[in-house]
């Protein structure tokens, strides 16, 4: 009830200790996870920096971890036929030059290891190009169908249906490519190596399709209804509207989706690891085996001595992948944000 009229009101701040603590905890957790995000940048770069530094700390770390290395996963080591560990540990460490990294050969496990990244980089590009050439048209055309031509009831099912492809773990796609696709393709094209860049790229296109499809579909659906109706009202047919009105308006979004697809293709590990044959050779033919950057990390990191040159070079490859996908995201984001907005405002 209302307090007596004369009593002045003192609305002094109250202490709510539980809430105070709770809010600090939430802020703390948030800061913690944001710090982790920063740590990812730092730690991947830090380990890669070992190549260019003659870091005595790294030596000690390496000794310590090499002892431990032999104590776990014996089975794995012997079955996988890894080069003897001791041999590599004794080898004198020298910091690599940029020239070494640009050499055309990748032989990390030998008495005279070669760390040329060119075959790996080229392999990633080659496989990504194949994946995009196969996947992007299908994904974009499929998006055009679901957003423009599909009857209403079908839309509800087709979109999640296609997006189911994104739900396959990549190891499952890799397995399917390794066992089924590789055989079928070899029978069709009659090439020499069963596992090669083409099989890998084709399998990878299955992983890329949902990425491109979803974002393209979103940006096609985002084209204002008024624009479409205006075109139809002027007597344009449906496909003319699609090609001359909707597609141009949605182009930046579609472009961004392809960029993100490229990012996915370059960074995917398991599919290429299982389907490309993994030999680091530098050729143009799509039917040769390749060893991509991501696959190299995946295949070799488990057998490497912590802290040695090979280890650092693998991290350097990680840095390259990191920087690459970072730039792609950046471009995609800037592109979509600026262009899409401008277009819809009619500028």
């Amino acid at each position, binding site marked *: 009830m209302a307090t007596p009229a004369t009593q002045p009101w003192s609305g002094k701040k109250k202490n709510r200790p539980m809430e105070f603590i*709770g*809010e600090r905890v*939430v*802020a703390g*957790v*948030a800061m913690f*996870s*944001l710090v982790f*995000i920063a*740590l*990812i940048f730092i*730690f*991947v770069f830090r*380990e890669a920096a070992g190549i260019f530094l003659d870091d005595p700390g790294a030596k000690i770390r390496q000794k310590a*971890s090499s002892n*431990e290395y032999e104590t*776990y*996963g014996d*089975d*794995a080591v012997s*079955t996988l036929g890894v080069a003897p560990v001791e041999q590599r540990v004794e080898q004198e460490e020298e910091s690599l030059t940029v020239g070494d990294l640009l050499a055309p050969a990748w032989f990390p496990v030998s008495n005279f290891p070669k760390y040329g990244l060119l075959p790996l980089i080229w392999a990633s590009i080659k496989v990504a190009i194949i994946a995009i050439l196969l996947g992007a*048209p*299908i994904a974009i*055309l*499929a998006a055009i*169908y*679901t957003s423009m*031509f*599909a009857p209403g009831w079908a839309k509800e099912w*087709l979109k999640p249906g*296609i997006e189911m*492809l994104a*739900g*396959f*773990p*990549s*190891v*499952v796609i890799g*397995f*399917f490519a*390794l066992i*089924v696709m590789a055989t079928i393709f070899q029978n069709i094209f009659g090439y020499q190596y069963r596992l090669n860049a083409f099989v890998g790229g084709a399998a990878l296109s299955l992983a890329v399709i949902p990425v491109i499809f979803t974002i393209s579909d979103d940006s096609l659906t985002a084209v204002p209804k008024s624009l479409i109706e205006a075109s139809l009202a002027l007597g344009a*047919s*449906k*496909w003319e509207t699609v090609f001359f009105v909707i597609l141009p308006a949605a182009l930046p979004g579609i472009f961004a989706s392809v960029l*993100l697809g490229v990012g996915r293709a370059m*960074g995917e*590990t*398991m599919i290429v690891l*299982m389907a490309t044959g993994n030999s680091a050779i530098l050729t143009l033919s799509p039917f040769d085996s390749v060893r991509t950057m*991501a696959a190299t*990390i*995946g295949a070799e*990191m488990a057998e490497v001595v912590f802290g040695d040159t090979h280890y650092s070079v*693998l*991290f350097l490859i*990680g840095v390259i992948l*990191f920087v690459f*996908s970072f730039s792609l995201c950046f471009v995609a*984001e800037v592109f979509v944000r600026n262009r899409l907005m401008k277009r819809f405002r009619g500028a």
Partner: protein
Amino acid sequence: MTKKRFLDIAVPAVTGLCVLFVIVAIGAIMINIIVNGWSQISLKFLTSAPEEGMTAGGIFPAIMGTFYRTIIMSLVGVPVGTLTAIFLCEYVSANSPLLRMVRFAVNTLAGIPSIVFGLFGLGFFVQFVGPGMDSIFSAEGQIQWAQPNILWASLTMAVLTLPVVIVSVEESIRTVPHDIREASLALGATRWQTIWRVVVPNSITGILTGAVLAVSRGAGEVAPILFTGAAYFLPNLTHSLSDQFMDLGYHVYIMSTQSPDVDATRGIQYGTTLVLLCLTFTLNAAAIILRYRMRKRVNA
């Protein structure tokens, strides 16, 4: 027939064929795996360990390993991601540069290859945190934590799923109408009470969807655990956080590419793949149903 007429039919037909192609591809993969994997599935396959140098027996340790690592990952990643999203939505002003920066970092992170997260896990947990823990907890010179294990693999996965959780929780929190927040504050509720009694309950389906999606992505992901804790074969089940573990996805990879006689174990490979696929599809289906319910409620 004029060119125009022709295209009126051809354009929908060609684009429709592309849709059909994708659906057929999905169907082909599913049918191939189900048909070849089904005969392999038996109680024994699901509940016993590999035998005879991994050419026979079951995949029980791999099922358990995947189960454990997914649980640990979720227990860490989901709450941390959710709280982070709540903090970003409710405590950081909407156009502050901090928020823009964080959002950009989170978006970028979502696009970073998962193998790079594996590198991070190795460089940070195994090589940095691990030795630190050993110097505190382990006997002199003994290495317990400074090596790949299930804890580091799970935490790596948690970091990997963090952006997924943050983005989807943020999205669903933003769908909570502004006027019911105001109603709460106008009734003398504090910001904290408003968050926990109005905002979170009203975005709970969205939060759950994000969590389930993240978990399903994490459960099927193999690249980050290749060198942060997964093992080819372990005689014993994982029973400590500092043990390595077997994993379904890793098992498929290793059995189909690295084992001495790949063809002899084809059945096991298919069986394992089928189990993995069932797991991730169940999780995905759960996410889709949740999202559908959420959408219905938002539209209502």
